[in-house]
């Protein structure tokens, strides 16, 4: 075994992702797909978001409203955010073809089912909600024990210092494939696992009148049931944003290598990565 210090040739094949990381990754991927599409179905049943305990019908506490309006030019889709109204015909409020317009907030292409069916949206959402939370529990337990959280997720001082350099490298699409994650990777995964995932679960539970009776403090923490619903929606948007960046990074960093590591666990590190026991050449 020779120590690879040169910049040429292949780096070592390292065992990077444990079985726990890989299985929970794919279970989550499936869950989030169904949770997103069924969640948009549920949102379509009342396509407005508010701040506070209740929804203002005789006063205005809405921060987002999506709907269709009749204008001189015919029906149009409209989205109002913080009092500012935008024409979103074709995407939000009104979509589909001119002959067969569809008047739902989010179009049928991104909801499960594709037609209006709140009951089914709820069935799908709560099933995958349970699987999601169960998987989260498994991940936290396994990753705490096997050191994944400590090694790869929690950003340390050195990681924070390395952020500017890492941003510069990302901007040039120049990636270092190391044994553990880079500063930006750590920061984004930390945000997802320790902020976004707990937030979306807790705001979801805050919408349950049953849970409100046993955990009324959640209503206070999130500033009311309707605020919790708004936060749930915003966290959804952040997770969609994370997903898009995640996919772009996988494509940019080498989709074959990245996918292999998340399926088999084995990852081709950059040339020059110090060898370690268990590596394959």
């Amino acid at each position, binding site marked *: 075994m020779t120590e690879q210090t040169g910049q040429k040739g292949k780096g070592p094949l390292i065992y990077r992702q444990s079985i726990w990381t890989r299985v929970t990754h794919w279970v989550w991927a499936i869950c989030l797909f169904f949770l997103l599409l069924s969640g948009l179905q549920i949102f379509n049943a009342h396509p407005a978001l508010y701040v506070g305990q209740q929804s203002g019908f005789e006063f205005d506490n809405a921060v987002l409203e999506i709907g269709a309006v009749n204008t001189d030019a015919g029906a149009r889709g409209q989205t109002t955010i913080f009092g500012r109204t935008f024409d979103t015909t074709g995407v939000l409020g009104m979509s589909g073809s001119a002959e067969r317009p569809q008047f739902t907030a989010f179009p049928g292409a991104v909801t499960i089912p594709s037609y209006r069916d709140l009951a089914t949206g709820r069935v799908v959402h709560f099933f995958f909600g349970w699987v999601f939370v169960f998987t989260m529990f498994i991940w936290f337990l396994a990753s705490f024990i096997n050191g994944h959280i400590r090694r790869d997720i929690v950003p340390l001082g050195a990681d924070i210092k390395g952020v500017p350099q890492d941003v510069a490298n990302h901007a040039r699409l120049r990636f270092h494939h190391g044994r553990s994650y880079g500063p930006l990777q750590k920061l984004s995964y930390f945000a997802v696992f320790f902020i976004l995932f707990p937030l979306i679960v807790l705001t979801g539970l805050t919408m349950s*009148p049953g849970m409100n009776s046993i955990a009324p403090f959640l209503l206070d923490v999130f500033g009311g049931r309707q605020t919790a619903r708004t936060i749930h929606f915003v966290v959804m948007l952040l997770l969609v944003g994370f997903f898009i960046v995640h996919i772009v990074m996988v494509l940019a960093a080498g989709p074959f290598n990245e996918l292999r590591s998340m399926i088999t666990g084995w990852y081709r590190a950059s040339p020059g990565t110090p060898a370690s026991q268990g590596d394959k050449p």
Partner: protein
Amino acid sequence: MNGFKLNRRKFLGMSAAAGSGLILSGCDQFDFLGQRDNQVRAVLEQANVLTYQVQRKLIGEQTLAREYSPSEIRQGQRPNGSTNPSTAEYAALRAADFANYRLTIKGMVEQEMSFSLAELRNMPARSQITRHDCVEGWSCIAKWTGTRLGAILDMARVKPEARFCVYHCYDNIQTSLAGDILYYESSDLVDAYHPQTILAYGLNDQTLPVANGAPIRVRIERALGYKQPKYVHTIELVDDLSPFGQGKGGYWPDNGYDWYGGI
């Protein structure tokens, strides 16, 4: 430096392919889950049974729903579902200002009973300012006044084998070729005996309006709006929900919604 030389064109092409794959994925491949008798759906629905069981274990039988201060009543109670029943029976009662209304308690009780509206109003009352959460997603805070259902059930002496209360209503929520479909709902006895479960005849210090369920509406405060049946005329104690409606325990559960309604 690294092994993967990024070709900008290839990169953009792959991104576009991934993006369009995401858009197409939603369409209608999962519409089969909307079929009420689908086997996969039946599996997914088990999650609602789990939710019910976990919440019942987690939450005390007497644990109260949050009550709000009067200043948080900022609007009228938004009516939804039936707002003006058109059945002849209800129209006649309404014309006489519900003077002839009787609430009947029957089924698995030692003593079947019935109460006039005046009798219900003369019993010890409970008022509560609570938040009404519609399954659609909106919430509305209002003050509800009524008679505790638990006290009435105690008067009728519920038999030990009873497991559910079925709430029969006057409103024709849907009209089909076979005639009117009348609203009904049901709850377990935990919800029926819950301290905040009342037969409400008052809303925001006024007589309960027709749009909100006059003369009597059941309030089950730890559940969604569809578990608060309006225009109730009979409460039946049973050990089995299958003989009623489509057998799922309520009009909306018959239409695919979860029976528990606590989430």
